[in-house]
Structures are given as structure tokens and as C-alpha cells.
């Protein structure tokens, strides 16, 4: 019953999205105000419908309705309530429905918070968002319907994959989708502007807020994913350069380039075309990422069930969105030509350089991700792994780290490079001194770690100085930028230390045995059998101590979920500001109770995630930026002077 209502509402949502796609846009072209006015109500209706549909699917899980195929495949009678709720988005069908719901939420938000735009602008934006919603709703309905019925209904379900029975599942996917789908707003704004044929400052300032918000969500989504993988997968890694991770990282890189270029194009009539193009690229990468994840065409640890039809469907959507937008771009690019001159020695140039670095990184990682597919088509099987991505990203981040403080130091419009460099020189030595200190304090660092730590100190030192020396009262834009840049510094430091100074030991331990790893003593006190909720576990007891002082007792588990007949490793972690102690169980080696135990020491790993959270916070703070009238007038004066050739 509920399933049929859900099915019906899904169809109704699709119809609403189609109407939203067609009517306001037609109204715009015929200059029909009544038709354009339908855009907002239709958006609210679409959101109400998709949200209700989504909640119906949740209730099917809560009520354990196994007549619904998707429910019995991913739930069971033994599954605790909280995981029954999260199971809704635990597999393909439900996660796409969630995607659509989040999309509709963004559409409704745009409809609600667009008072400052003209009716013709709003109707165009919402219509373009309607195009995207239509595509994905059709995808849900025709290629991944979560409301399909199994008759007769099985008595019990197949249960949720144990790895997904975790707190991380509650927050990581929703956050990631908010970011992913949020980029569709930036995309739609760009396309709507192309249709209208003109972009002004107000338009870009407005779209910059939305991009910032989407970027903040995407950042926190990726951070949560990394943290989750670290504690849940039981082997202590935080980033694997897996195609699915790349699928979220690629749009992030492009969006990072985008928010930096927008900083220029909202002030000047420059880089407008580039801004539009980056918005198109960022969202196209989201769709491409979805294709990679859902089509099963690339080997990945994240295995959504492979289905060629779904792959082709998304590929067609990608072709329509990206192809359509790029065609429109090609037609309109002449009207977007910059009218303001950009001085070489100015912040504008640095922001352009930033976007070039980030877009180069994007394509480098995209190539690495796609190459296995290309080779596959030629009959060769290859894989591109961490060594490639790690090296490339390291090299590309060098110019980023070098130029970031310089960009923040240079003034808008026109400045002197030599003055800026002179102002930054002391910080070079401060960073060098701190790096040397770190080198000896942490008992040598390798080349990459040294470079990373230096980059961290360099960015931190300059950012702090720029905050102290900021003339007048800092505005939210400046504070946001500084916080985000300090976040980059914290991230760089944490990442360099974790990657290059961690200790990983796999040890065969007998009950009662003590092993020393990195100055800590680990005493293995055997394994006991425990039974919790819907699983049984062999729980190890490992006492950690240093110089005879007990620190903590860690209880890693080897879980067994009878329903899925699947074992799972649950690590136990003693988190710390400067060091995580990470212990997980391998397997029992023999009858005497000897176990294979992983013991990891991960220095400063939390700094990495904390740095990411600072970047997110920076983007959120920047949302509250209100450029005051005086600044705006000054800027207009600058631009007018420039145009008139007065200096």
C-alpha cells in the first residue's frame, strides 16, 4: 500500500519536474509573466513530493515491509531501528532517491532565497534545475525504482551490509549528496545566465554564495568519508585513491577552482567565461562520478551492483547536461568576453593561477581514474594506484602552497610583486626554521614529509601575519579566507606526518605476550566471545602502556553477522591530539589462541580532518560577507579609472 503510494508520488514528482522544466522557460521566451510565476510554486511542490516519497521509503524500512524488493534486499528482522532508517540510502536505489530529494531541497531553497533576482532570472534558473531533476527522477523511475514489489514477500530480509551498520552511514552520504547536488545550482545559474546572454556582478555574487555552500558540504562529506574509512574498514587508511573517492574529489577540485575565480568575476568584468565554464565542469564531473560509481565499469572497493543499463542512462544524462551546456557556452562565449584589464601583478592573476593549478589537478586525477577503462577497451588490463596519484598530487600542490600566501598578500587590482615578496620573505625563514626544528624533533622526515610540513608552516605563518596586519575591521570574506587557508596548513601538516611518520605493524601475538611498538607496550590478554545486538564478536583485550604506566585498554572486535554470513573487523582506536593508537584483530592463527594483530600508530591524523573542517568553516563564514557600499564605490572608481586610462 505504502509502496504503491510511493510509486505514485514518484511519477507525480517526475511530472512536476517536467512541468518545471518546460513552463517557466517557455514563459521566459514568450515573455509571459504568468508562466514565469509558476516556477516558485512548482519548486515547492516538487520538494514536497520528493520528500514525502523519500519518507515513505524510510517508513517501509521501519515497518519491515519485505514485499518491497529493495527493503528485503537491504534489511532484516534483526536489524536495529537506527540502521533500518539508514539502510534507506544504503544501496543504489534508495541513494538515488535521496539524491533527487536533496536536489529538490536545493531547488526549493533557490526558489525561496532568490528575492533579489528578477523574475526572468529566477524562472530560468529554476527551469534549468528542473531539467536536472527530470533526468534523475526518470533515472529513479525507469532504472532504479526502490518501490518494486516482490511477490510473494520473503519472510525475512537479506540484511544490510555489516560495513554500513555504522554511525558514519548516518551522516556521510547525506552530507556528500548535499555538496554533490549543490553544485547543480552553480551549474544551473551558469546555464541560465548563458541562456539570458549576460552576467552581471550581482548575478555572480549571488551564485558565489550557493557555490560556497555546496563546496562546504562537499568538503565535510569527503572528510567524513575519509574518517569513516579509517575506523571502519579496519586497515587504518584514510584515502585510497579509489575511483569512488576520486568521484567525489574531482568535483571538489573543480569547485575549489570555481569559488576562487568567482572572487574575481564578482568584482570585475573579467574571467566571466572561465567562471561559467568551471561551473559546467564541476557539475559534469559530479554526473561523471555518478556514472563511474553506479555503472560498475571500474574496479572499486565500493561495489554498487553493476548494471550496464544504469551506466548508459547516466551517460546519456551526462551527454545532455554537459553537451547542452557546452554548446550553449560556445554560442555565447563572445558575449562573455572580459572588458576589464587584469594587471599581472595583482591578486586577480594569482587567483587565475590557482584555478589553473586546480583544474590541472582535476584532469590529472580524471585521467588516472579513466585510464583503466581506456586500456580495457584496447584489451589490456591495468590499474593506476596510489603511487601515480600520490606523486602527481604532491607535485601539483607545490605551486599551490607556494603561491597561496602570495595571492592573499597581493592587493586587488594592482600591486607590486616585489613589495609582496619582500613582505613574505621573513615567513619563508620562519617556516624553514620551524621545519628544521620539526625535522629533528620528529627524528628525521623524508622529502615529501619535509616539503609538506614546510608548506604547512609557510601558509600558517603568512596567514597569521596577514590577519594581524589587516587594516581596519576584518570582513567576513577575509576571515573566511584566512580560516580556510589556515585549514589547508593544518591539513598539510597532519597529512605529511600521518603519511610518512606512521608505524604499522602486523604481529603474531600469544595471550599474555607483550610487544613494543613505537615506544608503547601492547599486552595481548586474549580474546573472549561476546554477543551484541545482531552480531557475535570475538573481542580482544589489549592493554596499552608506556614506561609501566597504563594508558588504555583497547577492545578490537572480529564481528560475525550470522544473517549475511560475513565477518567484519572493528578496530579500536585511542584517539589523541598528536597520535592515534589503532588496534585491530586479524584472524586466529592456531588452536592455542594466537592471533594476528594489527598495531598502528598514526601521528597527527586528526589534524588532517580538523584542517578539512576549518576549510568548510571558512566557506561558511564567507557566506556572511556583506560588502559595504564604500568598498563597492571604491571598486567602481578603480574600474572606471582603468577604462578611461587614467592612472
Amino acid at each position, binding site marked *: 500500500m505504502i509502496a504503491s503510494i510511493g510509486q505514485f508520488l514518484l511519477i507525480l514528482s517526475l511530472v512536476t519536474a517536467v512541468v518545471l522544466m518546460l513552463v517557466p522557460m517557455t514563459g521566459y521566451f514568450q515573455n509571459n509573466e504568468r508562466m514565469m510565476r509558476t516556477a516558485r510554486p512548482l519548486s515547492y511542490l516538487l520538494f514536497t513530493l520528493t520528500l514525502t516519497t523519500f519518507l515513505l521509503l524510510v517508513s517501509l524500512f521501519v515497518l519491515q515491509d519485505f514485499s518491497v524488493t529493495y527493503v528485503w534486499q537491504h534489511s532484516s528482522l534483526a536489524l536495529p531501528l537506527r540502521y533500518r532508517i539508514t539502510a534507506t540510502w544504503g544501496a543504489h536505489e534508495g541513494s538515488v532517491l535521496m539524491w533527487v530529494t536533496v536536489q529538490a531541497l536545493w531547488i526549493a531553497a533557490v526558489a525561496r532565497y532568490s528575492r533579489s533576482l528578477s523574475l526572468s532570472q529566477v524562472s530560468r534558473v529554476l527551469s534549468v534545475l528542473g531539467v536536472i531533476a527530470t533526468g534523475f527522477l526518470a533515472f529513479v523511475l525507469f532504472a532504479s525504482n526502490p518501490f518494486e514489489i516482490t511477490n510473494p514477500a520473503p519472510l525475512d530480509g537479506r540484511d544490510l*551490509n555489516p560495513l554500513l551498520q555504522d554511525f558514519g552511514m548516518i551522516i556521510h552520504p547525506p552530507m556528500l549528496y548535499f555538496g554533490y547536488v549543490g553544485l547543480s545550482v552553480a551549474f544551473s545559474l551558469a546555464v541560465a545566465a548563458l541562456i539570458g546572454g549576460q552576467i552581471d556582478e550581482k548575478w555572480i555574487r549571488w551564485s558565489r554564495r550557493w557555490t560556497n555552500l555546496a563546496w562546504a558540504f562537499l568538503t565535510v562529506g569527503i572528510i567524513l568519508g575519509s574518517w569513516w574509512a579509517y575506523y571502519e574498514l579496519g586497515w587504518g587508511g584514510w584515502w585510497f585513491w579509489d575511483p569512488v573517492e576520486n568521484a567525489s574529489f574531482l568535483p571538489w577540485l573543480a569547485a575549489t577552482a570555481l569559488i576562487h575565480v568567482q572572487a574575481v568575476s564578482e568584482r570585475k568584468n573579467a574571467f566571466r567565461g572561465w567562471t561559467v565554464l568551471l561551473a559546467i565542469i564541476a557539475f559534469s564531473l559530479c554526473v561523471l562520478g555518478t556514472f563511474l560509481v553506479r555503472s560498475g565499469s571500474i574496479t572499486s572497493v565500493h561495489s554498487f551492483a553493476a548494471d550496464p543499463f544504469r551506466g548508459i542512462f547516466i551517460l546519456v544524462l551526462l551527454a545532455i547536461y554537459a553537451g547542452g551546456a557546452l554548446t550553449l557556452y560556445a554560442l555565447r562565449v563572445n558575449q562573455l568576453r572580459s572588458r576589464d584589464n587584469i594587471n*599581472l601583478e595583482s591578486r586577480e592573476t594569482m587567483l587565475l593561477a590557482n584555478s589553473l593549478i586546480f583544474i590541472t589537478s582535476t584532469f590529472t586525477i580524471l585521467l588516472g581514474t579513466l585510464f583503466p577503462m581506456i586500456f580495457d577497451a584496447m584489451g589490456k588490463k591495468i590499474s593506476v594506484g596510489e603511487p601515480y596519484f600520490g606523486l602527481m598530487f604532491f607535485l601539483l600542490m607545490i605551486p599551490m602552497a607556494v603561491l597561496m600566501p602570495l595571492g592573499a598578500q597581493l592587493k586587488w587590482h594592482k600591486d607590486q610583486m616585489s613589495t609582496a615578496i619582500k613582505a613574505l620573505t621573513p615567513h619563508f625563514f620562519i617556516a624553514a626554521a620551524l621545519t628544521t626544528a620539526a625535522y629533528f624533533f620528529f627524528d628525521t622526515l623524508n622529502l615529501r614529509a619535509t616539503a609538506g610540513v614546510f608548506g604547512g608552516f609557510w601558509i600558517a605563518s603568512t596567514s597569521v601575519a596577514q590577519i594581524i596586519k589587516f587594516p581596519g575591521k576584518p570582513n567576513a570574506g577575509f576571515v573566511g579566507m584566512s580560516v580556510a587557508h589556515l585549514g589547508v596548513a593544518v591539513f598539510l601538516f597532519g597529512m605529511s606526518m600521518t603519511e610518512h611518520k606512521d608505524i604499522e605493524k602486523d604481529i603474531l601475538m600469544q595471550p599474555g605476550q607483550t610487544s613494543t611498538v613505537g615506544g608503547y607496550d601492547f599486552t595481548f590478554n586474549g580474546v573472549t566471545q561476546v554477543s551484541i545486538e545482531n552480531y557475535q564478536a570475538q573481542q580482544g583485550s589489549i592493554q596499552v602502556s608506556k614506561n609501566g604506566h597504563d594508558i588504555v585498554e583497547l577492545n578490537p572486535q572480529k564481528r560475525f553477522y550470522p544473517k549475511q554470513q*560475513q565477518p567484519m573487523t572493528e578496530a579500536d582506536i585511542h584517539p589523541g591530539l598528536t597520535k592515534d593508537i589503532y588496534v585491530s584483530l586479524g584472524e586466529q592463527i592456531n588452536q592455542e589462541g594466537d592471533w594476528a594483530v594489527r598495531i598502528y600508530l598514526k601521528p597527527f591524523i586528526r589534524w588532517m580532518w580538523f584542517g578539512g573542517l576549518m576549510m568548510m568553516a571558512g566557506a561558511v563564514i564567507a557566506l556572511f560577507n556583506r560588502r559595504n557600499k564604500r568598498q563597492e564605490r571604491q571598486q567602481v572608481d578603480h574600474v572606471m579609472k582603468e577604462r578611461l586610462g587614467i592612472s
Partner: protein
Amino acid sequence: MTPTRRKRLLLILMIALGVAVAVAIFLTAFKENIMFFKSPTEVAAKDYPINRNFRLGGMVKEGSMQRIPNSLKVQFVITDFAEDVKVEFEGILPDLFREGQGVVTIGKMTTQELFTAEDVLAKHDENYMPPEVNDALKKAQNQSPNYNNGSN
């Protein structure tokens, strides 16, 4: 040339140089860091990179798994039901490693007969078969005269 033009030319040259360097680095990094996937049949035909890591995938042969006492060393055989390769690994095997299941390992041939794995890859889902392994098994089935349909 006016100063502005000279600056602009300089900028363009700098970008071109940057792109060239990036491409050069990319090609080098790529050439040195891609990893080939080989099936036991290909390994038996000596078609594998020497002294370089590659991925070896297939099924873990039933009854082939052996532990070396008092260490974390294990030996097992990866098969595509046409040819076998002996694999040695020291460390902790992933949760879903089992005899009779698909597996992908990373490592190199240390002798003519022995593949020393540095990594044995885990999958999140036990119903999931790595696509390369699937293809390799199909190929062996269709092309190899030694194929014995997996019943051993």
C-alpha cells in the same frame, strides 16, 4: 612591444612552460606507476613484467592455503582453472579472503614459480567479483586446453 603586451606574452609563455612541464611529469609518472593485471595463464606463459609489481588475480584454489608456523606468512595458490600460480604473503589477510573465492593480489614474481604479494585486496561485499578476475576466468575457459571447469 608595449610593456603590457610584453607582460602578457611573458604570462602566456609561463603558462605554456607550466603545461609542458606538467605533461612531461604526467607521462613519466604514468609510465612508471601503472600496474598491469595478469591472470595465471599469462604468468605461466611468462607474460609478466619482471622486477616490477603487477596485479595477479584469480580464484584461491580449494585446499591450497597453508600457514607457516610461528609467523604471519601464508602460502596459497591462485588459479584460473587452467594454470596455477603459487603465492606467498606475509601479513593479515582481508576478512573476505577464502578458498574458492576471487582475489586480487599485488606483488611480483620473486622466482620463476613464486609470486610474493605485498597486498591482498579486500572487497566490501562478498557477492562482488572483481571484473578483471571474471574476465580472466572466462578467457581461460574459452581459450585454454588445460581448463578443468573448476571442479578440481
